[in-house]
């Protein structure tokens, strides 16, 4: 709270104190509750996390043709993600260089020119300033080069996923991903066709902190048994809770974590390949991934992970109507846009492998919508505890009583999770999934980024 802030008059000390407590508490799995509500921390996050890290903007399948654009967010700010006239992808800051007026008038569309409504400066799809009314009279010799739309510092496309960063000093995306790449390849490169987005993203606002979403998708499997207990009551999910806890927790690289639900043995009856239909599963091959990756995928029931800070993916078997339709694999992408210390704008995309039939894609979409969306039986419940936790994050009592949140599951001696032997992929791996190292990994990197001086970066590998 800015309260904490004002309470001693040294507005910097609150965030510094909290970050010190974070660093000291992490080895013991203790995290100050105020990280989920303090305004000063949040304003730091916008600058030290969202203005520096690689963040997800869009998928290329959303802007197939030149001139296609979508308006997306980095932190709280709008960027125009547009397919330029040469077929390249641009991410342009949505602010006219004259008086700063936002010039993008739609959530998506197609255009060859962005014209500012105030005085009419016009920009092309690469952000170049083209001119304005009676240009010679008004701006004669002024440099157009220096007055084009501002752009992100770096941009990349990975399996069609467009990521960008505002920080020119950021490491390359590959380096930033580190070990996480192996796992994203496993999902997005599972067959030669790759994935595409179905429809436009759903957006909704939740009064919670973005880190609640990020840590949940980093591998919070334990909450299913309680929070999603109703899912079994309605047959929405095929694997019993205890069985579903079998699997791997993986700290792929600093900040990025994931989790697999996997049966102990290959020949377990449960779902294979996330319960994708047989004929789709048959298209999964090693054209773009290794045998190990394919084998892991074949045994997987659920994949859930988070690329720091706020890019989450989930691949799981779902159905909208258990009585009539068996679960199908559903791949969904989430971003948790930070709209305030206690405010998330959740973006929600559904994906399918390109080679799926229209019917199969429709099943994916319906099942996903009914399970993991604002109106879905799973997600409906997830937002509830996040709201209730962010309220605590704002509380003075938590500050005064020094409430530390508990991230101790899976610490040495706590529970049954153990380091996994001979796992073919990168990262620090535990079996089974009774552990929160995946969350501690996220917060360790978070802590390093929050303390990093401008221009400097924590190391991207263990």
């Amino acid at each position, binding site marked *: 709270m800015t309260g904490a802030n004002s309470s001693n008059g040294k507005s910097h000390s609150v965030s510094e104190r909290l970050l010190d407590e974070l660093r000291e508490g992490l080895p013991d799995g203790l995290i100050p509750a105020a990280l989920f509500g303090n305004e000063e921390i949040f304003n730091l996050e916008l600058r030290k996390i969202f203005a520096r890290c690689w963040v997800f903007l869009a998928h290329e399948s959303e802007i197939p043709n030149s001139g296609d654009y979508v308006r997306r967010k980095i932190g709280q700010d709008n960027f125009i993600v547009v397919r330029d006239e040469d077929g390249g992808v641009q991410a342009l800051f949505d602010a006219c260089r004259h008086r700063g007026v936002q010039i993008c008038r*739609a959530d998506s569309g197609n255009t060859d020119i962005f014209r500012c409504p105030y005085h009419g400066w016009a920009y092309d799809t690469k952000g170049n300033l083209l001119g304005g009314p009676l240009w010679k009279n008004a701006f004669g010799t002024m440099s157009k080069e220096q007055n084009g739309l501002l752009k992100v510092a770096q941009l990349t496309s990975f399996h069609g996923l467009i990521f960008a960063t505002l920080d020119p000093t950021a490491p390359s995306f590959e380096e930033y991903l580190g070990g996480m790449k192996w796992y994203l390849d496993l999902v997005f490169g599972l067959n030669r066709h790759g994935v595409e987005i179905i429809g*436009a993203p759903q957006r909704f*606002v939740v009064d919670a902190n973005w880190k609640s979403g990020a840590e949940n998708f980093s591998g919070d499997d334990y909450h299913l048994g309680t929070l999603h*207990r109703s899912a079994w*009551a309605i047959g929405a999910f095929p694997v019993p809770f205890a069985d579903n806890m079998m699997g791997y927790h993986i700290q792929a690289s600093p900040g990025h974590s994931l989790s697999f639900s996997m049966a102990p043995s290959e020949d377990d009856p449960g779902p294979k390949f996330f319960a994708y239909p047989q004929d789709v599963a048959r298209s999964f091959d090693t054209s773009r991934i290794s045998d190990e990756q394919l084998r892991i995928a074949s045994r997987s029931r659920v994949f859930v992970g988070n690329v720091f800070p706020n890019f989450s993916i989930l691949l799981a078997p779902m159905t*909208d109507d258990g009585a009539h339709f068996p679960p199908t694999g559903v791949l969904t992408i989430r971003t948790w846009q930070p709209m305030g210390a206690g405010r998330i704008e959740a973006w929600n995309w559904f994906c399918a492998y390109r080679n799926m039939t229209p019917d199969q894609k429709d099943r994916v979409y319906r099942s996903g919508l009914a399970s993991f969306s604002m*109106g879905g039986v799973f997600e409906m419940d997830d*937002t509830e505890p996040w709201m209730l936790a962010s309220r605590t994050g704002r509380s003075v009592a938590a500050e005064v009583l020094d409430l530390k949140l508990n991230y101790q599951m899976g610490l040495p001696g706590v529970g049954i999770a153990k380091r996994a032997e001979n796992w073919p992929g990168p990262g620090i791996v535990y079996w089974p999934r009774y552990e929160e190292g995946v969350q501690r990994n996220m917060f360790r990197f978070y802590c390093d980024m929050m303390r990093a001086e401008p221009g400097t970066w924590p190391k991207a590998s263990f």
Partner: protein
Amino acid sequence: MTPPSEVPVASDLYARIVAWVNREAELLDAGKEREWLETMVSKEIVYQVPLRQTVERAHGTGFSDTTFHLNESYGSLMTRVVRNESGFAWAEDPPSRVRHFVTNIRVSELEGNRLAIKSNLLIFRTRRDQTQPQLLSGERQDVLRNEDGEFRLVGRTILLDLTVIETHNLAIIF
């Protein structure tokens, strides 16, 4: 199909529809979702809340016909009912307080024993200590069918006046 023909406000049929609409809202606001589903909804219901985007005037309303906030069948609606009865539906326990304000009711006849009903719907929703409600507004487009003497809801489309929805969930029925 033949074009819909307007049902006069003065007619008995219109009056019956008003009663139907009011009864439905009363059931939903009272949380009697099972009774609503079993007594007022057709097994063939198509219930959709399409996604909306902000688009320029030249490009229309911005509604999508392929992507949705909700896209429900009788089975999936029943799933919701069962879920709320499960005792573990945390999202709605304690339940929201929901009020349906239904105004501007327009009725027209379709062929096949069906009626098209348009209304303006304002939903007022609060939870816990909230003093500021969530307000959801839109046009509700219903299709009712006479199934052995009773009107049943066979189609519902909610055209929301919002692109981003400020609500932690859509565990409500419009």
